[in-house]
């Protein structure tokens, strides 16, 4: 699951509830989709997850 070769970078995805995950694009996509379905009953696509994810370095400064 790679979007535009983004898998090499580290990304952070944050949920409005405060939950977050940081890692490769594949990890962030899988974890965010699982979180959305399990906790919030929400379906999301990989594209939707990555559209809201931010590069991990940016998010940590």
């Amino acid at each position: 699951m790679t979007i535009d070769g983004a898998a090499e970078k580290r990304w952070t995805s944050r949920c409005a509830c405060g939950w977050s995950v940081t890692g490769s694009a594949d990890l962030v996509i899988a974890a965010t989709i699982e979180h959305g379905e399990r906790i919030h009953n929400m379906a999301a696509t990989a594209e939707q997850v990555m559209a809201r994810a931010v590069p991990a370095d940016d998010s940590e400064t």
Partner: protein
Amino acid sequence: MQAEVFVVWLDGGQPALTGPCGPAPWLIELGSGDHPVEVVERIVRDVVGPPTLVHSTSWRRDRDAVVLSFVVVIDGELVGEMESAPIVRASLARSTATAAPRHIETSAVVEHGLRHLAWLAQDDAVVAEELPAAWRPVLDGYVPEPFRSLG
């Protein structure tokens, strides 16, 4: 439509909020074909554990959706590592005679939910049966506001 779930428990005899999102409202998306109570009960059971009570206590329009508020009572043993915060008393958001309040704070929704639960504990045989006895003195404090103001 969304469910906004307030998971409540007794922390040393005091009501507290918890959940997978900590004390913050737990938002659950509801599909057009979903039964809200069934979805909330199922997801609470899957994520937190078997709830003691699940009750819808209010609704409002917010976040471009109809939001159904739920109070879910759980046993303290289910809290585990979830963050928790004590519930503090709050004023209710008041409607006009024919219109909803313009703004409703989360604390007002929780206050309304616990007042609703207090009423159910007296009026609803199932709630009276299922609600642990330790909740009774807590809910006794959630009396109608005019009387509380006189206290």
